[in-house]
């Protein structure tokens, strides 16, 4: 206990003792435990600003809901896109490439080529379909057997069917492989059998950009919303701000409860968005499973992954804090005692 404290205590105790006391005030006394008190105060403001929000549950819930919906929209779309991507990656596994060989390439050269291709990176399997096999297959499947019989020569080329490894089944790499294969001497024409998978992939990419853009716009909307809510709170508490300024509060001190209020709004909004997206996925997951069962697929709807949840909570916190920061910076200066 500092001498200042004990002095103060004795001074305050003297209320009944009216005798003059010429004891001098110590000048260089400081309150103890300032750093500790600083953190305690932050914690206290954090909790009490939540308490203030708690006292007006409807208003708080409404603000948090608006933030929640604005966050849930891009988050939900993001998760859905993730799922579509997941699904199309499954299809990419079945992607294959057909190499139609030039006529007149000898059987021996074809075998060498097939062997060479098997050695390439990203190639899982190379299957050779000779001209005769192709003809037999065609005859069987097409039902044009009679027509073929009338030709005196087999019109079908020999084909090497190339199946990529799962890692290489990704569109960009398939395109690379296609380019390489096309340069081979014996190859007349190379064709990617699943061109549309690539298209889908670029659509997903576009969708992701769109979600980002949407998230940006909605983020701005949240900033404005939180800013406006905090502005109204500041105005409704201007008398309190004036009084604390008169007593010697710094701007940082006055700012604090408003910043924490914004933080709480953001966090509550993010949690609401989490709940919204999770329940949406929960609702969709049963019908999706049934659908994929009908299509003989193993696919089931993936939920929110940890990264998405963290980004969601983080952006809620940051947007809430930033929104209130902007409002506080703009409106607190204007409130001065007169």
């Amino acid at each position, binding site marked *: 206990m500092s001498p200042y404290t004990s002095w103060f205590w004795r001074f305050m105790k003297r209320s009944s003792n009216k005798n003059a006391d010429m004891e001098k*005030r110590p000048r260089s006394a400081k309150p103890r435990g300032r750093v500790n008190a600083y953190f305690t105060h932050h914690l206290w403001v954090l909790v009490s600003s939540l308490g203030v929000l708690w006292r007006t549950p409807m208003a708080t819930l409404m603000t948090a809901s608006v933030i929640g919906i604005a966050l849930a929209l891009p988050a939900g779309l993001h998760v859905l896109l993730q799922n579509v991507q997941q699904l199309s990656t499954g299809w990419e596994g079945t992607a294959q490439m057909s190499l139609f060989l030039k006529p007149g390439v000898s059987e021996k050269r074809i075998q060498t080529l097939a062997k060479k291709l098997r050695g390439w990176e990203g190639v899982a399997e190379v299957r050779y379909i000779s001209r005769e096999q192709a003809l037999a297959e065609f005859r069987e499947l097409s039902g044009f057997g009679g027509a073929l019989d009338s030709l005196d020569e087999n019109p079908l080329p020999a084909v090497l069917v190339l199946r990529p490894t799962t890692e290489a089944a990704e569109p960009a790499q398939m395109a690379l492989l296609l380019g390489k294969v096309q340069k081979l001497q014996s190859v007349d024409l190379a064709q990617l059998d699943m061109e549309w998978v690539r298209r889908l992939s670029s659509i997903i990419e576009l969708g992701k950009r769109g979600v980002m853009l949407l998230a940006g716009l909605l983020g701005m909307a949240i900033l404005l919303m939180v800013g406006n809510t905090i502005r109204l709170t500041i105005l409704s508490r201007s008398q309190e701000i004036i009084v604390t300024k008169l007593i*010697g509060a710094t701007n940082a001190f006055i700012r604090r409860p408003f910043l924490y209020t914004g933080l709480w709004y953001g966090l509550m909004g993010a949690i609401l968005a989490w709940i919204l997206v999770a329940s949406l996925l929960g609702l969709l997951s049963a019908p999706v499973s049934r659908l994929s069962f009908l299509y003989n697929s193993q696919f089931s709807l993936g939920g929110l992954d940890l990264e998405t949840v963290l980004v969601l909570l983080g952006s809620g916190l940051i947007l809430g804090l930033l929104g209130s920061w902007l409002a506080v910076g703009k409106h607190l200066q204007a409130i001065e005692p007169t």
Partner: protein
Amino acid sequence: MIQFDNVNKRYPGGYEALSGVSFHLKAGEMAFLTGHSGAGKSSLLKLIACIERASRGNVLIDGQNLRRLKNRHIPALRRKIGVVFQNHNLLYDRTVYDNVALPLIIAGYHQSEVGRRVRAALDKVGLLGKERVMPITLSGGEQQRVGIARAVVNRPPLLLADEPTGNLDPELSREIMGLFEQFNQVGVSVLIATHDHDLISRLDHRLLTLKQGKLERDGWTSEMQERKRAFNNESD
């Protein structure tokens, strides 16, 4: 502690609330400030707490010229000054305890210390039993005393009071003035603006009288004291 050098205060409307005011209140001194309504008493106090700034002249507090005081240093100045406001300026959505604790919280005192000091200050103004009460349920005089407790809880070296006995009966007024005298006796400089001539004529302190913004008289509260001091000064 407080030094005014030829201070003018002109409000934006062009009205000159103070003109050519000069005086010096030494550390540990106690003085009353009086004058008719509109004479500029509140304006003078506002200049000291840097709520308003002087239009001309210099105001020095504890050797610090307020003309050169940056806005961000104003809070530090105000923490050194306890102010009892004419209109109380209490926070009506907080308890009496929280109101009085506010200056300590702002200054970053530890919770345990806050509790002891707040109770000691409330004890001093006779409101110890009303800690948990909302100020709106208190009488005008009680609210005034909450304001006084809040002004002194931080042990400021300078205490300003604007009509601190405006709502009090004579008995309580005398008690409150006694309280200010006690603060003064332990070294706090005190400046009190008041209308209450009856009250101050019984006390023996310096008296500054404002008239239409000018310092008309710088003397003593009682005639006899005044003559005695004048005599002493001549014989020095």
